[in-house]
């Protein structure tokens, strides 16, 4: 979590994210002149992605404690986390490779950069399903005193809805839906950060309350 | 033993799900054979030339090895059904022995070929040859595992599980049957 905040500060290099309309040459130039910044971001991003996994794992444990008729949502949640995080880390690799040797042929650099952006957007699909699974498991909780408060489910639904538009960055190069557009990029990051923080807090509460009845992971 | 003319039993030997698998496998391999024949029809000379480079002797010995192992497995099932478990175990053992000889011979056939530069990539015939015999080899290895399970069951279980023995035998005969057709198509055809 802390890493996430630190990376955020280092992120400003990326803050004005590369607009997709840049031609390969400019992209290569961009990579050339601030390689150190990018490499820093890449290394930190790897750590962040790694650190997010335990957070989601704890949510998976809590979901398994929710008494629905079967643990289909827990498995779906675990699989989504697996896929989402790998995609996120792959994005770093592409940036890292591009920044590693910036004097490569510009077209390759821009290809790697595009690939990085594609993978950066990919987790959107799984995060949406994650939120849906989480929300559904909370709604269907037949437990006498529900493990998660209701508003958590509503929050997840909202998060999922907000993330949907950013999947279309692939189509547009300019305007709100493009990479650097307000809707897809900034909204997505803010929503994601808020989501992580809120889940973190909710988990703190449920884990403490859970102290009483120990139940193994599903 | 031979006098026991088993009446026309209405039940299928072995588990019905195994027969589903056997028939399905036959159909799938049948499709592969037909596809092979179709592509062979398009380029006879290439197939003939490359076929000449195959080692016919090992192929033939392999066929005989498989048929004998099939015989012993069949005798083993008959013995198991008749209740004499010790003979059944020995018969299955011999069948397993012959069966295990098949992959060894296959190695003696593949290694010199691959060392000699004949790989699946060389031409279409060898691609078919390696893929089909490779698939068949997987079935043989699986069959060996199944038969060793049957032997273990015969030796350890107080009452031998007849249907397991029959299922294993049916599968093994199917593997032998597939090889017969493969042998004819790949080695003997002109």
């Amino acid at each position, binding site marked *: 979590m802390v890493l996430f905040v630190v990376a955020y500060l280092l992120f400003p290099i990326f803050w004005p994210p590369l607009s*997709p309309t840049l*031609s*390969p040459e400019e992209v290569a130039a961009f990579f050339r002149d601030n390689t150190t910044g990018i490499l820093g971001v890449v290394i930190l991003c790897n750590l962040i992605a790694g650190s997010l996994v335990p957070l989601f794992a704890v949510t998976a444990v809590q979901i398994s404690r929710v*008494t*629905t*008729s*079967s*643990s*289909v*949502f*827990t*498995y*779906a949640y675990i*699989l*989504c986390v*697996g*896929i989402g995080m*790998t995609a996120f880390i*792959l994005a770093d690799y592409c940036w890292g490779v591009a920044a590693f040797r910036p004097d490569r042929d510009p*077209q*390759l650099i821009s*290809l790697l950069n*595009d*690939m990085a952006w*594609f993978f950066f957007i*990919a987790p*959107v*699909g*799984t*995060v949406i399903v*994650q939120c849906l699974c989480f929300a*559904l498991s909370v709604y*269907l909780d*037949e437990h*006498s005193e529900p493990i998660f408060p209701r508003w958590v489910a509503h929050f997840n639904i909202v998060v999922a809805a907000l993330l*949907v538009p950013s*999947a*279309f960055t*692939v*189509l547009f190069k300019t305007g709100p839906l493009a990479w650097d557009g307000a809707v897809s990029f900034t909204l997505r990051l803010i929503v994601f950060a808020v989501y992580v923080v809120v889940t973190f807090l909710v988990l703190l509460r449920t884990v403490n309350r859970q102290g009483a*009845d120990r*139940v*193994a*992971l*599903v | 033993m031979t006098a026991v003319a088993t009446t026309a039993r209405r039940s299928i030997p072995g588990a019905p*799900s*195994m027969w*589903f*698998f056997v028939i*399905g496998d036959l159909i*799938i391999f049948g499709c*592969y054979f037909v*596809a092979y024949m179709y*592509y062979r029809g398009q380029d006879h000379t290439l197939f003939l030339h490359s076929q000449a480079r195959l080692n016919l002797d090992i192929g033939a010995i392999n066929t005989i090895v498989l048929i004998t192992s099939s015989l012993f497995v069949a005798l083993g099932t008959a013995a198991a059904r008749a209740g004499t478990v010790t003979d059944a175990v020995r018969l299955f053992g011999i069948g397993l022995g012959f069966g295990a000889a098949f992959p060894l011979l296959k190695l003696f056939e593949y290694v010199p070929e691959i060392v000699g530069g004949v790989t*699946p*990539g060389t031409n*279409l015939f060898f*691609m078919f040859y390696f*893929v089909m015999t490779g*698939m068949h080899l997987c079935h043989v290895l699986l069959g060996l595992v199944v038969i060793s399970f049957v032997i273990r069951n015969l030796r350890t279980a107080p009452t031998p599980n007849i249907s397991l023995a029959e299922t294993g035998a049916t599968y093994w005969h199917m593997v032998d049957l597939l090889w017969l057709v493969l042998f004819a198509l790949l080695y003997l055809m002109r």
Partner: protein
Amino acid sequence: MKSKKRDQWIAFWMVPAFFNVFGLVFVPLSWMMPPRSPNAPEPQMISFMQSHNLLIACALLTLVYGFAPVGNSIYLIQIKRMSVSPVFRYTLMVGSITGAIVGMLFPMFCFGLGAFRSGYRPSILLMLYDFGYLAFIGSLGCFCIMWMAFALAIILDQNNVLPKWLGYYTLWQYVTELMAAPVWISKSGPFAWNGLMTFWFAMALYVPWQIIVYVCIYRSIKNQPDDELESAWLHQTSPATDVRPKATA
């Protein structure tokens, strides 16, 4: 009566919808499947790579591919009910995670990337073209272990959750995956990635299998006795509070 198995049903019905979209995205929209032959004439390949609806396909997939795990989780809960060790469940889990990325997401992105920016040299486009198809059709490993784990689980299972012949049918899925191996070697003829032996036989076996599996799972969810459900302890009359079933992994 509020069906107790509602969460399973929701997950269950989500997946056929996903597969229809999946089919729609692949076949009619971007004409990616059935694949072109590996050594199609270059201009044809490049024009294919530039076509705009590859991008739409890509966007749709990024949105929808999250439902693949839901499909796999349905298999997982059925395996959980079987009397087999959890090893099969973990193999299937790991297989599906790698499979989703390597087998579905990455190839789609390769095509999307090609279409995204027009300035690429043909050599890069061809590389993406091969990468996409080889990764999609040639990816054997993860799917092999997935179907093998599923098949063995069904065959070895005592309390007969899914019919045995389905186990053998899944075993053929494993066999067809093996048949896809020559895709890496040959560029034309029956063993190329659009060849009869590797692609069409596998497809002919896969599509009916997918439908049959869903029919069987539908039946097994339907006639799963209520007392076997994990939420069963909640509805038991006995007030014992700590009779919570140990939810083994």
